[in-house]
């Protein structure tokens, strides 16, 4: 709930001044900018408030690679690739990779939510 009520978390209905296209998750989707993209669920049809930690579909598909928190963390690699560097989409064929930032750069706004949590175990 702390993550959901954080001002950075958005339920999104539009994109670049237009209504959300189907491929971006129309009619309504979630954006949680400090987490990996698969947590930004698309085409939401139902929201349930539960008192247990639910599983997401990627976690169900491969739990050793996709977790619940999915916070952007350059120091914890995915089992099959590093998360330490990233390339901006649209930067072109010869663009350098840039270092990935902890919490995607939103540490100031969200790091306190995870005080004391082992972010390697709770990936």
């Amino acid at each position, binding site marked *: 709930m702390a993550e959901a009520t954080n001002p950075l978390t958005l339920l999104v209905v539009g994109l670049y001044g237009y209504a959300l296209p189907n491929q971006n998750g129309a009619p309504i989707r979630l954006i949680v900018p400090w987490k990996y993209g698969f947590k930004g669920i698309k085409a939401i049809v139902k929201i349930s408030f539960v008192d247990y930690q639910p599983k997401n579909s990627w976690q169900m*598909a*491969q739990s050793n690679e996709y977790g619940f928190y999915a916070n952007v963390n350059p120091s914890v690699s995915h089992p*099959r*690739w*590093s998360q*330490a*560097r990233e*390339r901006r*989409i*649209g930067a*072109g*064929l*010869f663009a*350098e*990779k840039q270092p990935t930032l902890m919490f995607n750069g939103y540490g100031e706004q969200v790091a306190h939510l995870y005080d004391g949590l082992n972010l390697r175990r709770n990936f």
Partner: protein
Amino acid sequence: MNTLAQIRFIWKPIVFIVCLVPAVLVVTDAFEITGRLGANPIEEIQDRFGNWALRFIMITLAVTPLRKLTGRNWLVRFRRMLGLFAFFYAFTHFLVWLLLDQRLLLSAIAEDIFERPFITIGFTALLVLVAMAVTSTLGMRKRLGRRWQQLHYGIYAVGALGVWHYWWQVKLDIGEPLIYACILAALLGYRLWSSRRDKRRRARP
């Protein structure tokens, strides 16, 4: 297929040019002449070269079964060129990863090769292909004698490692790696059956 000269000077150049088409299409797509590389061009280029490497490995492995089934012995004259194209596509796939994706950052490259099993597998397959490519000439074949054939049976390992590398690379949709695995199984299975049948025939008095 008639004379050796016709194969060497007409058919092999034609096949050579056809085999280059996938690579040319990558370049023309990069300049948006034929198509597009998409939002993630480096991954797209890597994927394409990797896929064609696997395809050429399968095509190369198909030469002997086709030759045996159709009796067209001249097919074997194309086998080395097809194998070298498999090497070309695999090596370019590796170079794209090395130069465009990893940008020659040695620490990231070493981490990938030694800590990501699917990359270790792919890199091993590439090393075998390199060894086969540099020993592909007739001169090398004469120099190495019996060892040459032992080394060049490595194409079986390369096929298996290549499919394995692809299988462990995909996220969830194992459809394409599965198809390659089936093709490889059929091509190797045919060889196994054919060599057993030949042994049985030789055993008969």
